[in-house]
């Protein structure tokens, strides 16, 4: 694998620059925007997205996708709220349980994808339905968490300096990011993930543990979703089946804006952090403006996504050859998905 530094680092650089630029514009236009606490609030309000984005980064780096993350967050909040409120479990036992549950769900999807050669898109779609449905099986209504220690952790301010503070959620998210950076860039597991995303066949031929790594990637994503669910329940202090609806899109958008290629193999965990911060900043800008309606957030995110994807296309070494790159990638995946299916069922509309 040739290391072409420029096309890889430019999207990341653009993301960081864009963030700085947006923050500068905000500070220039709105009073009170240029404050450390505004910056810290980005972390406080998006800690869960950061955690889930990290998991998603690994999945996308490996060339897959995970649509189930939003529902797993909802399920986690629901199980947590139900066990803590209605069954008086200790919160540590509950947190341990939900983390195991999320990982198990991820493991299940990973096994289905890897062992049975199913499409990640469809399998995680099934996982999304399953987790959302399980939420409603527990309760249709929202459950408010009133447990004392939960509220204490949730509302605790960790003062950094003067009166600027962060919450425990931010600490959790930053620890996850630090671990993820180690895992992605300094461990054998991370190198395997990049190798699989770059070219799975080559990875197999090189003797890398492809099956184990792919299953672990989905397990990791499940774990991150569950952890994000815990963070989310600290943030919202409630469990609800409609929580985190569409969060999978936000997570994917954050990863892509962070410079990770959806075809896999290229990207940085650090980029995802800035992707999440930019999404948070858009919301903060719209909030500070006051005259713009909330749906501009969606349009802005869409435009940003579009811009970044176009940028990625431009930076690709073979951009001049039009659509050949993604076709090559799709072909590669199709071969893996259906090793012997093509010959048998060919026929328009049987």
């Amino acid at each position, binding site marked *: 694998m040739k290391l072409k530094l420029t096309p890889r680092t430019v999207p990341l650089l653009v993301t960081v620059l864009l963030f700085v630029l947006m923050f500068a514009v905000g500070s220039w236009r709105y009073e009170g925007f240029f404050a450390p606490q505004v910056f810290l609030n980005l972390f406080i309000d998006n800690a869960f997205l950061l955690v889930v984005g990290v998991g998603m980064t690994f999945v996308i780096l490996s060339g897959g996708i995970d649509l189930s993350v939003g529902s797993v967050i909802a399920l986690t909040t629901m199980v947590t709220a139900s066990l803590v409120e209605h069954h008086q479990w200790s919160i540590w036992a509950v947190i341990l349980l939900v983390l195991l549950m999320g990982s198990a769900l991820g493991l299940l999807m990973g096994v289905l994808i890897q062992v049975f050669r199913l499409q990640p898109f469809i399998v995680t779609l099934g996982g999304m339905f399953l987790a959302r449905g399980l939420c409603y099986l527990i309760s249709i209504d929202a459950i408010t968490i009133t447990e004392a220690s939960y509220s204490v952790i949730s509302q605790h301010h960790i003062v950094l300096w003067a009166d600027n503070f962060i919450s425990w959620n931010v600490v959790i998210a930053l620890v996850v990011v630090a671990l993820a950076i180690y895992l992605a860039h300094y461990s054998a597991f991370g190198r395997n993930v990049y190798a699989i995303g770059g070219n799975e066949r080559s990875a197999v031929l090189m003797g890398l543990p492809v099956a184990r790594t792919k299953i672990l990637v989905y397990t990791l994503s499940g774990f991150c979703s569950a952890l994000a669910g815990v963070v989310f329940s600290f943030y919202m202090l409630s469990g609800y089946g409609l929580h985190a609806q569409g969060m999978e899109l936000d997570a994917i958008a954050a990863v892509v804006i962070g410079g990770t290629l959806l075809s896999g193999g290229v990207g940085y965990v650090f980029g995802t952090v800035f992707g999440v911060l930019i999404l948070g900043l858009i919301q903060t800008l719209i909030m500070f403006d006051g005259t713009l309606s909330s749906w501009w957030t969606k349009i802005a995110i869409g435009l940003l996504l579009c811009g970044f994807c176009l940028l990625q296309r431009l930076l690709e070494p073979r951009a001049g050859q*039009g659509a050949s790159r993604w076709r090559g990638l799709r072909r590669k995946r199709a071969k893996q998905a259906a090793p012997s299916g093509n010959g048998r069922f060919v026929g328009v509309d049987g």
Partner: protein
Amino acid sequence: MRHTLLDKLAQWGRHPLCWPVLTLVALLLLNWAFNPQFLHLEIRNGRLYGSLVDILNRAAPLMLVALGMTLVIATRGIDISVGATVAISGAVAAMLIGGTLVIQDGQPVYVAKVPMLLALLAAVGAATLCGLWNGLLVAGVGMQPIIATLILMVAGRGIAQLLSNGQIITIYYQPFFFVGNGYLLGLPFPLYIVAAVFGLLLWLTRRTALGLFIQAVGLNPVASRFAGLNARAILLCVYAFCGLLAGIAGLIVCSNVKSADGNNAGLLLELDAILAVTLGGTSLAGGRFSLVGSLLGALIIQSLTYAIYSTGVPPEVNLVIKAAVVFAVCLLQSETLRRWVFQPRLKGEEA
């Protein structure tokens, strides 16, 4: 003799439409078991009534979107923006029609802001533009289909809300309700739309070379280009057509509920459509596709919903059962599982 019968069964079992048909029949039987009146059809006021008609009618938007999605998936693409397109189409129609009840000469008369036909054309046109935009990104720019359509999926809901100013627009215009609730010759009107679209597609893909072209692009884009196919034009048309069908589905949805909701119209419809296509035996890897299968898939989803409601299972279970169906059907289509189950027979075949 017994051997040939087994072989024949195995042959049937490998027919692409075998599983969708069996699933649908099983679901209908399940419905029938819980509700003896299920298969009952009757004509009241010249209209055909019955649970079966109901299922067909309710499944109409999904069937339309699934048909468009089938073609997109056949080219090895995917369109996850159809739900947003449905919302945009509904918002445009509702915005243009609006409608008020005016008393003229003692008679209540419905007045639309813009002539209805024009409004409908504008709505479908807007949806087609959405499809074209997707096609442009996929075929022109060369983005991956999932990310290209993700852009519109995220931004589309915002645009729909922008059009409707973030509110649910209620429509007060009687003629518009015909699109989703009307009856023609005793059958619900949406069924005619589905039949027309299906007929057109069947003709296009079977009686012209278009079906072959689409399949060629999906099976091997490079080879199809060397064979002289204009793969980009085909992709562009396929995505535009998918948008168009989503637009029509949006009109039906909007007319059904007599309002346009930018936030919730067509929510998760893209996932249901992809599910319907997959259930119908079309592989997400592109190439082979089955329009009939997708219709069956849409009907399976609707019958499942109907069964859940009619058997008295709490509706909340719907999603869990859907998940179980997704997993089950995926596993049935999995080559690995087939190899595990049918190993002895397949070995015999190869010998």
